[in-house]
């Protein structure tokens, strides 16, 4: 498959990049929420919260860029997908409301702290599940007529979308657990190691299940993955997954605190690349390509100037913020 480089393709990569950065950055912090019930001690929960409180806000901003960028660069895709994913989108937003305010609210009350802990867990779980379901619903395709979504409002709910939803919950939990391995010490870190093992195995099962199911959704996906000579290219993905998994298992066994998180991110990157390979050049699978959905050239060019100049700058100061708060979080280091 050849990729013609034009504005729409450039923008497809930019949006894909923004969504990917969102997935890896907010992924681990949503994962922490998902793991919350497994750490019932208040002391542990304080540490978990403190490990991301300075950066969670920036993490979530990538979601706004993904959505806003999609509306600006591919307005037709945004206009078709959002009504198609109506229920999961609303669920995700409500989940994010609960977990977002929990970051501040749980420190402002003693009596109701447990309630905000539940809100943090429930909101994180709901948002993740909704994101995973939305992904599955996009992959299976939506019904389009003219420039509108024309399906029902339960079309997103299928066994496949449930599978992708659960898979994402497992994946984010793995990111969260490996993040804790990196950022904590003592007993909390040991628990995180244990959970990393469990969620890594579950994640491998999930990757396998989704990989097996995806090619059967549409002939195009099957063709994309297995046709000669495409298979030479696409086979790199499962091979890389095997290599990364081996490295990840080794780093967990040897208790190398910093490696598991980055290897887990690499697993996410590979899965994400796999999805991209399946979908390209469709932005709404089977219905709308990136060229059909593209905004007029002058909109895409106007924004490209900003993206080219600002994304590197944003990455630089975001990296600086992470650097400022580097190292292990100690139980007594609250900052509120």
């Amino acid at each position: 498959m050849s990729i013609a480089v034009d504005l729409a393709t450039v923008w497809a990569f930019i949006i894909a990049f923004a969504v990917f950065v969102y997935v890896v950055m907010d992924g681990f912090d949503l994962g922490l929420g998902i793991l919350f019930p497994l750490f019932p001690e208040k002391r542990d929960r304080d540490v978990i919260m403190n490990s991301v409180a300075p950066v969670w806000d920036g993490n979530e901003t990538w979601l706004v860029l993904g959505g806003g960028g999609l509306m600006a660069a591919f307005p037709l895709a945004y206009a078709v997908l959002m009504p198609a994913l109506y229920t999961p989108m609303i669920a995700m937003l409500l989940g994010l409301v609960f977990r977002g305010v929990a970051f501040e609210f749980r420190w402002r009350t003693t009596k109701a702290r447990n309630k905000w802990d539940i809100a943090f867990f429930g909101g994180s779980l709901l948002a993740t599940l909704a994101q995973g379901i939305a992904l599955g619903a996009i992959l299976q395709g939506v019904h389009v007529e003219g420039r509108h979504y024309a399906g029902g409002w339960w079309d997103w709910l299928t066994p496949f979308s449930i599978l992708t939803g659960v898979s994402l919950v497992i994946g984010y939990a793995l990111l969260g657990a490996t993040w804790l391995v990196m950022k904590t010490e003592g007993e909390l870190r040991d628990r995180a190691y244990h959970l990393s093992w469990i969620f890594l195995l579950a994640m491998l099962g999930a990757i396998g299940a989704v990989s097996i199911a995806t090619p059967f959704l549409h002939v195009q996906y099957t063709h994309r993955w297995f046709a000669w000579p495409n298979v030479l290219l696409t086979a790199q993905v499962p091979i890389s997954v095997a290599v990364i998994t081996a490295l990840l298992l080794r780093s967990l066994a040897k208790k190398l605190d910093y490696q598991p998180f980055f290897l887990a991110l690499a697993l996410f990157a590979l899965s994400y690349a796999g999805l991209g390979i399946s979908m390209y050049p469709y932005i709404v699978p089977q219905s709308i390509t990136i060229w059909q959905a593209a905004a007029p050239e002058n909109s895409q060019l106007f924004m490209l100037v900003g993206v080219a100049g600002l994304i590197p700058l944003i990455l630089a100061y975001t990296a600086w913020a992470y650097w400022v708060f580097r190292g292990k979080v100690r139980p007594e280091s609250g900052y509120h």
Partner: protein
Amino acid sequence: MFEGFDAVVLARAQFAFTMSFHIIFPAFSIGLASYLAVLEALWLWTGREVFINLFNYWLKIFAVAFGMGVVSGIVMSYQFGTNWSAFSDKVGPVIGPLMAYEVLTAFFLEAGFLGVMLFGLKRVGPRLHFLATLMVAIGTLISAFWILSANSWMQTPTGHTVNADGQFIAADWLKVIFNPSFPYRLVHMVLAAYLTTALVVGAVGAWHLLRDRHLAGARVMFSMAMWMATLVAPIQILAGDQHGLNTLEHQPVKIMAMEGHFQSHKDGAPLILFGLPNQQAARVDYAIEVPRLGSVILKHSPDAPMAGLDTVPRENWPPVAIAFWSFRIMVGMGLLMLALGLFSLLMRFQGKLYDSRLLHMFAVAMAPAGFIAVLAGWITTEVGRQPFTVYGLLRTVDSASPLAAPAVGSSLLAFIIVYFIVFAAGVIYLLRLMAAPPHPGEEGPSHETPIRSAGITPATQGARP
């Protein structure tokens, strides 16, 4: 449920509800971020401890308000797609890039430096920390720039063409961004944010002065806030008047609705002070009016003719009563703010700024005035634009998603329930923070000290350079 309802009406209700909830937090955090930057600058400059105490005091309040602004803002950014997908398809190529620039130049800046601002003083030192505070404050202002540009373009669209798919396309980006109403709107909104914050800061200061008039922190914040009210309230009234003239030029129908002018007046329009606009009968019932004053205010001449809604097809009328009343509420709040500013100036000159209980009680009562004015002003301008989303060009009914009423109704219900839980809790926590007086050694934004483990227990040591 919701079967009998109109999906577009429900979508509008949802937008109005989520937007009203959202707008009060940016209005507060724009002003508060600048106030925090000023406090930290004063601390670095003078070295006086009272400034860092106040900084730390308001920082905690800022964090809670900012968090609520962020989560409700994410909802807004996706609502264009969920409930207004036809609008997104048609208008996305023009306002999408403006909002993308808001994310790139403002949201990331705020969020990126927020962590350092809240928790990093000890880690990065006072100068870098001040830079972080400044970046957050600048970020909020840049955000206002882009979102008001997008909103103003919807009110007074220029610099665009329409393509074969019915999409709006920018022909000239500078004309799109700096559209005719944009400068007025931006100034009016930023001043409103500063006034809103000043009234809250002033009310908190006054509240603590009523208890202890020697409390240093309360005196400083009260005095600063009253200067703000004294100086900015009159400027805001002037800016509002200029904005009104701009609206008359570009959106005359909105002015007709705000003024309740159903009929044209050939020789001088009255100013209707109060009355009950009756859209059906096209008249204002029980009107109390001052002859010719309307023409004096809007055209600066008592005999200038004013066109009324009778010159406009009925299907292009906005809901008159809402625009009429929300406008009056906004103006009323503005006049009260002016009164507070002048009263405080008088007391200041008499040396009774910290002693006048009447002034302090007035200031406490005025705490919500800014929020009320911002909401009322926003309702005036948005409802006044109806029945269009892009003024004169794209109708609201042609902007909605192809959704059934039950879908929109259920999500509206979900937002109402969730927002009321979150909003109620947030307001309680904010009031709790404000109820505690600012004290010397106010707990700082430190990443190192063991604090807050039991909720709001203050630290024993404040953050000092």
